[in-house]
């Protein structure tokens, strides 16, 4: 990975003790609490049911993608292509559902599963390309996923010519994408299940351990007999598949397949959520529950700025500053712990 590796740590800046205390308590819960408290004082509309649903929905989408991004970051990789995978999945799924709808009219039991499978297939395909190139050719993940970003975006635009794809079964949209189960949006349940699954994999399975091992110290992992290549490929495939899953949910909610879905902002936000949650870009570190909190924080921040009518251009600037500040704090804490 491209680390800024010049020079080992030197005595740090002042205020490190403070930073260490904050890191011990956990910066994210504190930030979340502060932002919610701030909204309670300044903007009651935040707590409206519809608004909370919106926040939860966007958190769910982002958390699923960011969980995948985290898996790749843990093996010291990168995935720039998640946004493009979302666009490709969305258009392929909508196209295939529309085509299946013509072949098997009104038979939702066939149309929907097959359509979703076609969509997830795109994730599998792109993930395999990414993983194989990174694992077997040891080329920079940045370049490989930059290439697949370009390819997937091109394919999505080629398929649709930039026009939204309609023709998905109504049931898919009304009974799934926009539906509520027990009073909560369906997406939220699916995101929770995915986060629990990833958490289980990370803490209770060999795959999870191996991913940390490969990212933490590749040489040591190989010497200890960890099948490094297979695990790296798996991380990339899982990442793309999770992005695809998010795309299925987003498309179901929107009601049409769009090549503009995802895009660069989803890619950047997924990395931002992971970094804010303390996932190290050097690999070997990252917990999915914190990444979900990171996604929640970013969604609340965006939503709060919308409600407070912060200019959308200013919002971009604030997100950038938050990202850099979070990364700088993490770096300070890391140096304080002495893992240099």
């Amino acid at each position, binding site marked *: 990975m*491209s*680390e*800024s590796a010049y020079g080992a740590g030197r005595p740090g800046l002042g205020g490190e003790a403070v930073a260490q205390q904050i890191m011990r308590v956990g910066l994210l819960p504190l930030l979340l609490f502060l932002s919610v408290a701030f909204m309670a004082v300044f903007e009651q509309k935040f707590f409206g049911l519809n608004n909370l649903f919106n926040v939860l929905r966007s958190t769910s989408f982002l958390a699923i993608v960011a969980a995948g991004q985290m898996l790749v970051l843990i093996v010291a990789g990168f995935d720039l292509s998640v946004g493009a995978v979302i666009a490709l999945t969305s258009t392929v799924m909508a196209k295939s559902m529309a085509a299946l709808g013509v072949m098997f009219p009104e038979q939702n039991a066939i149309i929907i599963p097959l359509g979703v499978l076609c969509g997830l297939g795109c994730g599998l395909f792109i993930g395999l390309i990414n993983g194989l190139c990174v694992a077997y*050719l040891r080329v920079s993940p940045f370049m490989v996923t*930059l290439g697949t970003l370009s390819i997937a975006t*091109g394919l999505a635009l080629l398929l649709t010519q930039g026009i939204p794809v309609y023709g998905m079964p109504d049931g898919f949209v009304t009974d799934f994408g926009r539906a509520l189960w027990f009073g909560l949006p369906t997406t939220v349940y699916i995101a929770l299940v995915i986060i629990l699954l990833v958490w289980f994999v990370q803490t209770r399975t060999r795959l999870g351990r191996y991913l940390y091992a490969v990212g933490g110290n590749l040489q040591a992992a190989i010497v200890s007999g960890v099948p490094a290549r297979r695990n790296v490929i798996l991380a990339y495939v899982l990442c793309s598949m999770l992005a695809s899953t998010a795309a299925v949910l987003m498309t179901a909610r929107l009601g049409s397949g769009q090549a503009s879905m995802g895009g660069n902002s989803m890619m*950047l936000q997924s990395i931002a959520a992971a970094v804010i949650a303390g996932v190290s870009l050097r690999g070997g570190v990252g917990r999915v529950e914190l990444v979900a909190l990171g996604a929640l924080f970013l969604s609340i921040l965006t939503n709060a700025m919308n409600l407070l009518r912060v200019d959308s251009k200013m919002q971009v600037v604030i997100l950038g500053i938050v990202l850099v500040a979070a*990364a700088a704090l993490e770096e300070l804490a890391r140096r304080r712990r002495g893992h240099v």
Partner: protein
Amino acid sequence: MSDVSGREVGRITPTAALVKAMLPIALVALLILFSAAESRVLSLGNLSNILNQASYLAIFASAQMLVIITRGFDLSLGTCVSAVSVTAALVMTGSLATEEANALAIVGGVAMGLTVGVLCGLFNGIVVAIFRVNPFVATLGSLNICMGVATMASDGRPVFNVPREFSNIVYSGELFGIPAPILIAAIALIVLHFILAHTVFGRGLFLIGANPRAAEVAGLPARRYVTQAYVLCSIMAAVGALMLTGRTGSGEPNLGGNLTLESIAAAVIGGVSLRGGVGGASSVVLGALFVTVLSNGMNLTRIDGNVQMIVLGGVIILAVFLDRFRSATR
């Protein structure tokens, strides 16, 4: 211009020589292939057109190369270009611009643009070198900040009425029959080559990228050099941004667009290694020419823009294959 490399290059083996010659060969092959499909590709007008277009990309790619050599990245390059373009255009069209004092306005605009570039580079450099934030995250942050600045300053609309004289100089100007963009790019690349190959700072960058520990042990002021590399990168990006502003005749908040990715792609295709420590002005020229010839040829043979994106993606992946092969033979 010879290729500059920070690594000790031993005896040049035939395979290594072949790998080194691969890109020029591919470039020629590409030209022949396209000219077979469309005879206009090799016309004099089109060739000078290719050179003209490649000079912009070469500037951005060499800016990017400076930080890639130190194992860095500059994701903010594209939005920095937008911010420079907008702020420079605002100054040029602002209060300074009167019928007789356009010269003053132009100088002010150029100064403004370069200042924005320096500020952006300083931010990146300080965050990366002093705070030790991963360059990806640091420049991702400044990407957002520059985008915000560019759209806020311009309200998201192009800034029109950039003085015609400015375009006359940097876009349609000529000296000894050489168009201004090519001339500016050539000067910038020669200066860059000199810095990289013949100054302590330039050699230091290669060492920092190739072996950070060694650089530190050797007593190089790594933090200062890396900061300077980011500043220099943004200044070059600002120069390119001013040239583009002259070409469009307006300050555009979306000018940067895909420039970040294109600049990284051109640099890597040219042979700049993302593992740091390898690069040179000639690599960037070749990379920029290759990407330009590819897109020019596809345009002339009327290949769909979306297919072009797919092809570019494939070429990028191919280029990293090649990079892998190249470093194996080195």
